[in-house]
């Protein structure tokens, strides 16, 4: 967190409220302090990088975030899927699903420096706002593992529904949401007691969950159901079920997977899988404003650090698409490895 802000200040980039939800939760005063610290430190500037996990060739693609030129292709463990940036921005956590563990990739040397336990078949995970705990979905085991990163130790396993996948932590860190694909539920879990708070039935095969920055809603995508359920976190009721319709595309091909909410909270982007589109949704009215044509079988999404571009991983066409967030247009596709899955932007 500190390093990211410092780097961006020194790098002369315009101040913008950082796009990651972890960072949105921070207070402005903290930024001012960090800005001061940042100006006093002599940290060399570096452009941002796009990191993509390629589930079929067991690599992480690193692209320059400005030119999109390949920087490095790093070989990691078997079937890398979910990826996350550490809170200091220096490391990448990788769910290597078939290797049954999490690898920690140092982003300076591009070497795997540590291997963390994860429980069987880790697919997606989420990081606590303090950066100390990873919550891991064990797809093959009906469990969510709670991992102490520093100790490299699983402290608790939380039983959930069948095939847990989507993971999200509330901005205050108090609530964990996990989606279970075959049970078709979003499980709300207290992160202190590790006990369930509520279980919300959504449409078939929920794959992804994302909190709004105010923590008042969780958006849950359902792949086979082809919908997004907006769940009120106070009542645990679905306040809106968003459906999609694209002329010329069969209903079965419209499958909601990855989601990304703009830093200002106004728009929600939803990847629609084999429909090869990203839906743009007004976060207030829940209306679908636009469908953007991207590569084939679009999985997951990540914003550039300034929030002006959105990157999508396209699992079948082996590329990422670049979306201009202001113009709502897909502007470019960039080849990566085989079957790209997760995407993260790092400083």
């Amino acid at each position: 967190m500190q390093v990211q802000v410092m780097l961006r200040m020194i790098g002369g980039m315009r101040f913008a409220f950082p796009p990651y939800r972890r960072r949105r939760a921070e207070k402005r005063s903290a930024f001012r302090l960090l800005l001061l610290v940042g100006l006093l430190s002599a940290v060399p500037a570096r452009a941002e990088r796009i990191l993509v996990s390629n589930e079929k060739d067991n690599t992480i693609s690193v692209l320059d975030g400005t030119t999109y030129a390949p920087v490095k292709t790093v070989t990691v463990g078997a079937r890398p899927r979910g990826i996350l940036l550490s809170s200091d921005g220096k490391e990448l956590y990788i769910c290597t699903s078939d290797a049954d563990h999490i690898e920690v990739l140092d982003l300076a040397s591009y070497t795997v420096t540590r291997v963390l336990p994860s429980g069987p078949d880790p697919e997606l995970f989420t990081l606590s706002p303090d950066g100390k705990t990873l919550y891991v979905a064990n797809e093959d085991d009906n469990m969510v593992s709670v991992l102490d990163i520093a100790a490299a130790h699983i402290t608790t396993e939380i039983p959930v529904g069948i095939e847990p996948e989507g993971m999200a932590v509330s901005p205050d860190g108090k609530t964990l949401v996990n989606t279970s694909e075959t049970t078709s539920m979003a499980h709300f879990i207290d992160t202190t007691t590790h006990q369930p708070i509520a279980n919300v039935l959504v449409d078939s095969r929920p794959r992804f969950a994302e909190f709004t920055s105010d923590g008042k809603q969780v958006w849950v995508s359902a792949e086979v159901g082809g919908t997004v359920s907006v769940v009120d976190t106070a009542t645990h009721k679905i306040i809106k079920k968003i459906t999609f319709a694209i002329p010329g595309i069969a209903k079965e091909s419209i499958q909601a997977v990855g989601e990304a909410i703009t830093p200002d909270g106004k728009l929600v982007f939803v990847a629609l899988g084999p429909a090869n589109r990203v839906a743009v949704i007004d976060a207030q009215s829940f209306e679908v404003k636009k469908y953007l044509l991207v590569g084939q079988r679009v999985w997951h999404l990540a914003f550039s650090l300034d929030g002006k571009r959105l990157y999508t991983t396209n699992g079948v066409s082996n590329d990422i698409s670049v979306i201009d967030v202001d113009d709502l247009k897909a502007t470019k596709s960039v080849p990566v490895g085989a079957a790209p899955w997760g995407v993260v932007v790092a400083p």
Partner: protein
Amino acid sequence: MTAEIIIDNVIHRWAALAFAVLASCAVTAPAVAQQSPAVRIGYLALAVKRSWPLSYLDQPPADEGIQGARLGLADDRTTGHFTNQDFELDEQIQPDEAAVTDAFGKLVAAGARLVVTDLPAPLLVKLADSPPAKDAILLDATQTDDSLRGENCRRNVLHLLPSRAMLADALMQYLAVKNWRHIMLAVGQGEDDKEYAEAVRRSAKKFQISIAEDKPWTFVAGARRTDTGHFQIEAEVARFTQGIGYDVLVVADEADNFGDELAYRTTDPRPVAGTQGLVATAWARPFEQWGATQLQNRFLREAKRWMTDRDFGAWMAVRAVGEAATRAGSADPEAIIAYLTGDKFEMSAFKGVSLSFRPWDGQLRQPVLLADAHSLVSVSPQPGFLHQYFETDTLGIDQPETTCKFK
């Protein structure tokens, strides 16, 4: 880790879960003070001694079907823990028709009005017409018979596995995409083989595949197990396929009597497809897409063997009941049946799209796998085969052509 330890762990975890769920119920569902009565699902099968297939390697398991139903029950229960619903499976595997009929009456009388069946077509129709079936629904987990979806269809019967027509269409679509337009058909002596061949003929016409030769396979390889018996088989298959111009040899041999001995023995080098070789099926061992790996793993752990299409049919049947009970929010069989047969029902079963029942014949619409022993080759419907409503309805008998008239 040994099996015992895994089971121990599971029990331990479920104890924790049960506690957790009880604790959470107090917070989230004060209105439901008590668990509603369990949803009772019947499992009714006629124990059939199936003939030994040609290959030693894949003998039909004695517990085929029921293991899928048991896994479906476990999956229903996991979901039920979070929705305050419980499920029970009343297993009735009977030795003869009279015992099956008797058991059916008892199941329904005991409140199991949702009955998963593994029964031959004539017996299934007989039960569907019997008085106890009036308030019940039969979920046919194992039959591919087209007449059950056609002239012998019944309003109170749903079919989980793809029909022969769907299997044949799945294969013919693939051949059309490959532009392998000419087939030779080798048909076994069994009634099932003849029906499979008929489905292939209908489908070939539909997708403009020509049948260069349509021949019954009559050879009985008496000496197959003797030393050098393979010479005889090879000579026979070469003779059978000699002088015929075709792209693919399509075989209709549902009982696995001879189909495995065609490949590599034909006069011209041609691939084999149909009931052996490249097989159109609801489930296959190499299948691992759309999360299917998880189901394969769960089944392997539970049954200590691979899942077959019949196991998958039974798993889908029990999961369909679970899904309907969850979505209807009720343990009342009436409500579950209404949801199951209503237009809102859909379920996911590791095929990448949602599956639902066709209202005109009770068939579950679904993609069909094309696989050989060790690899998934394709999944139909093939890209480009379009349909007004559901692309999966390009497989099998569509509404305008159905001969099903529900009584």
